[in-house]
Structures are given as structure tokens and as C-alpha cells.
């Protein structure tokens, strides 16, 4: 009897393992990759670019949330990835969206920031940010959270301006630029054309070309160097609004 026991267990294990094995995948894996471009070339951080009037600008940080993405078919039906967020930054501008049903998609939607339901503690679905697992984009360890205001920083764009064009960015009179939009009024959602026919079992990457010139087209970093608005008053809010309003124009989607 004992001699039969162990082989019996092994056979049972083999049986159950076989049962769990998935049949062919019926969805496509989908990722998104942002490719920031400045002056028609891939953005280089801490690289000097002309910034008018004999000035130069360097960007040191471009980090942002994208989330609540959806894909829409010609008949208007959508597959949404609600409340799923990615935090993207230099070296990590690519992230997984999820599994997409096969179909013929004509449009994609991307939101920039964190939806008001989750953004502040008055949000209907909000919970302490530390409750999210450490690897979740919404955990404060992503360094995109204002603890004192209980809200997410939707985007960080930081850099320096060399005001006299002498090549140094640390002279007296040179400027530090720091834009951190992050309150409900600065959450933005845009729709983009994207013809996309994913097939089951395959992997796809949506390429989001991000034209930084367009994104900052309405910003005057010399006039407003610091914009960390946690309310909707004052010039910091207006400056940050001028930035996030451009997400729609600055991004175009294609498929790799």
C-alpha cells in the first residue's frame, strides 16, 4: 500500500498540473513606450539647447503618470484599463498596459495624472498611498506624492536655464526650473488616432512620440520658474495648466 502511495501522489500532481495549463492565449499583450523628442531629435538630459535671447536650457527630469488608457474600435466599443497607472521616467519610459482583446482599433485614450477618485483623500476610492504595494506606481516610493497635501504629483519637469548663454548653468542669475503639476484640475485625458489590429498571443508596443517643444510651447520658464500648484489659484496654477493642456498636441501614437 505504501509503495503505491508516493506514485499515486505524483500522478495526481501531474494530472492537476496538466489541468491548470492554459490553452492558447486569446488576448494580445500590450505595452506603451514614450519617446521624448526635443528639437526633432531624441531628448538628451542635461544637454544644452538654445532657449531664445542667447539663453540655453537643460532638462534634468521628465517624469509623469499615464493611466486609465483605453482602446476603441470602429463601432465605439472600448476596452479600458481603468485605474491602472504607470509612472514613466528616463530609462523607464516603457510600461505594460495589459492584455487586449483582438479586434480592429481606431483610437486610443491616455490620461496624464491620477484620477480624482484616487488622487486626494477626498476621492471616493482613495486610500492611504502607502497601502499600495511598493512596486505599484501609486506607492509614495515613486517619489510622486505630496504627503502634506495628500495628492499625487502628475508630472515633474525640471531643468536649468543659462541666462547669459556662457555655458554655465550655475551662475548667479541662472534659473532653476521646476514644474510639478498635481491637482485634480490639472488631470488631463486625450484621445489619439491609432489603427491597430492586435492578434491573440502576440505582443505589441504602442509608441508615443512626445514632442517636448510642443509640450512646453506655452510655458515661459523665465517668467515662472517654479510651478507646484496644489490649488487652482495664482500664476503657478496657470503656468502648470499651460503645460498639461499641451499633452494632446505633443503626443502622437504609432505601433511598433
Amino acid at each position, binding site marked *: 500500500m505504501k509503495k503505491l502511495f508516493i506514485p499515486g501522489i505524483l500522478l495526481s500532481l501531474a494530472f492537476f498540473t496538466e489541468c491548470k495549463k492554459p490553452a492558447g492565449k486569446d488576448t494580445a499583450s500590450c505595452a506603451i513606450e514614450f519617446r521624448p523628442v526635443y528639437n526633432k531629435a531624441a531628448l538628451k538630459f542635461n544637454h544644452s539647447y538654445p532657449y531664445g535671447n542667447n539663453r540655453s536650457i537643460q532638462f534634468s527630469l521628465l517624469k509623469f503618470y499615464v493611466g486609465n488608457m483605453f482602446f476603441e474600435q470602429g463601432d465605439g466599443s472600448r476596452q479600458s484599463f481603468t485605474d491602472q497607472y504607470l509612472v514613466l521616467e528616463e530609462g523607464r519610459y516603457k510600461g505594460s498596459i495589459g492584455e487586449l482583446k483582438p479586434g480592429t482599433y481606431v483610437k486610443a485614450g491616455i490620461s496624464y495624472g491620477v484620477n480624482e477618485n484616487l488622487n486626494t*483623500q477626498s476621492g471616493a476610492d482613495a486610500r*492611504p498611498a*502607502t497601502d499600495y504595494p*511598493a512596486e505599484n506606481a501609486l506607492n*509614495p516610493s515613486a517619489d510622486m506624492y505630496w504627503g502634506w*497635501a*495628500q495628492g499625487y504629483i502628475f508630472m515633474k519637469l525640471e531643468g536649468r536655464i543659462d541666462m547669459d548663454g556662457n555655458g554655465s548653468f550655475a551662475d548667479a542669475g541662472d534659473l532653476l526650473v521646476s514644474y510639478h503639476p498635481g491637482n485634480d484640475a490639472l488631470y488631463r485625458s486625450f484621445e489619439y488616432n491609432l489603427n491597430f489590429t492586435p492578434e491573440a498571443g502576440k505582443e505589441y508596443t504602442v509608441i508615443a512620440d512626445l514632442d517636448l517643444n510642443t509640450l512646453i510651447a506655452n510655458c515661459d520658464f523665465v517668467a515662472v520658474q517654479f510651478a507646484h500648484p496644489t*490649488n487652482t489659484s*495664482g500664476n503657478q496654477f496657470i503656468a502648470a495648466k499651460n503645460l498639461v493642456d499641451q499633452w494632446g498636441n505633443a503626443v502622437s501614437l504609432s505601433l511598433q
Partner: protein
Amino acid sequence: MGQCRIAQSAIAGCLLLLCLYCSCSRRAQTAAAPQALSAWPPVPEPYYNTYSADRFRLGEMLFFDKRLSSGTAVSCASCHKPELAFADKVAVSAGAAGSSFGFRNSPTLLNIGYAPYLMAEGGVPSLEHFSVAPLQDHAEMNQNLKTSLARIAQDTAYLRLFRTAYDTLPSIKYMARALAVYQRYLLSSGSRYDAFLQGRTNALSEKEKRGMTLFYSAATGCGECHSGFLFSDFGFYDIGLETKDNDPGKWRLSGKEEDRNRFKTPMLRNVARTAPYMHDGRFATLEQVMQHYNSGGHNTPNRDPRIKPLQLDASGMEDLIAFMQSLNDTLPYKKSISLNTEK
């Protein structure tokens, strides 16, 4: 037979471990929450993070642990010093980077568990929402939470306490919760003023009693905002402080002009130990605070109409200060654990 004995031993071992585990879990759940004075209400706590002695001990260990800051330079206790009623003696405290400073005075944490919201503009609803924020703030402890977690995750003392307190491995979520429990139960109620309220009429000197009368009088109105057993109504007021450093107070959150320069009423227990004063530490002494109120402050746009010249003479101000000093807790703070993590 040998295999049977091994199996029996294994089962017995598992049962023993299960019993130990259950007893640990029970111990974490059954300890009674501390109470300051019977006259005080219980400290409000969220259902998902109730008190246990192990949770308090874990929070205490984290609170004093410098490994949670970059360069192991500071701990929470560096700016919230137990001997200073969990406040600091400088206007604004230096962060882990040394040259980096916050922009507000470090407030006392004693009795913070009763506060309905935190921060001078009141933007934080509970300790659970905020307790780890200073760890990552660049002007404070300046270390990513993941790094802090990695630094403590191998420490057997932490592994044991996380297990008994929350039945889990170390995580950011439970770091935040343990720190919240610890701070929530930093209670202070052993002042001579409390003894006086309990019937020991000689607990306060005549000078202090005169100060108390003035404090609650219509002439000064101190007790209107500094009300209740914590000496705060947790309201937001512009008390006529000349604006410095562009700190707009509650405006930061609301954006409403009527909130500009309004800050939360601070609690006054142990106030004689928490110099300097005001949200930015601009006043070094209680005397300077009294002079400010006695003068009626500056003509700021949202100044509360009750802030007006008090016309107190020197002895009146001394009496008020004497009363403030009677609010000092007389019980020395004792750490509940041997803090081998202070490294």
C-alpha cells in the same frame, strides 16, 4: 516505523509552531490601548490599525531608527525629540542632507492622535496617511521608502516585530501603520494643571491661577481658540503674523484668499518645552509670543477680529506665562524597548 516517527515529529513541530503563531497573534490583538486620563475620550483610531503593544513597539523602533534616512544621519526623533515634548529647539530643523531645511517649525507630537487632521494647513486626515512622508521628503529624511525598507528588512528584530504586530513581513504599508500607532499613543496628561482639575487645588500657584483666569477671560480670549483638554479648537486663523518666506498657510491647499496666512491652532500642552514658537519658529520665547498678542499683531488681510491689543501689563503677561508652564507634563518619557537600532 522510522518514517512514521519522522512524520509524527514533523506534525508535532507544525502544531507547536501553529500554537506559537496563534499566541503571538492573540497577544498583538488583545492589549488594551493606553488612556491618558479617564476624563479624556479614547484616542480615535482607524478600525484597520488598532493599538497593540507590539505595534507601538515597532513604531517606536522605526521612529528612532536613523537607517530610515539617507546617510543614516537622522531619525524621526532628531526633529521630534522626546526630551523636548517631541518637538525641536530650532526654528526649522536640518534634514538628512545637513544643508537642507524644512520651512516650518517642528510641532510637538504629544497627543497628536486626537488631532482631526494634521499639518498647519490641515491637509492630512490621519497619521496613517502621513507617517512615512517625512522619510522621503528631500528637506527631511531624504531617502526613498524602498531603500528604507531594504535597510530594515534583514534585521531580525524587525522581522520578529512585523510578524507579531501585523503578521507580515516588513513592508512600506506596515511601516506607515506602525509609525501611526506609535505617534497616536504619545499621550501627555500628567501636568500640574491636570492635578488641579482633579481636585488638588494647591497644584497650581496663585500666580498660575491668576494666569488661568486671564487665559479664560473675555479680556484675552486665549481660551476661545486654545480650547478643550488639548488647548486647541483645531481651527485656522490669521493671528496677525507678518508674512515671511511666502508661506501662505491654508491657502496652499484651498487657493482661497480668505485662507491666506491662516494656520491651525496649535495645542498648548507642554508649550514651555516647545520653543521656538509659531509655524516658522519666529519667536524664541513665550515672552515674545505674549508681546505679539499683547500688541495685537500686524494688520494682515485676514487677521481674526479677536486679535487686538490686550493692554496687559507686565505682571499679567507673567501670570499667563506661568499658567503656560503649568501645562508641562511631569512624567518623563521612557522608551519601551532597548533601542539597538539607534545606529
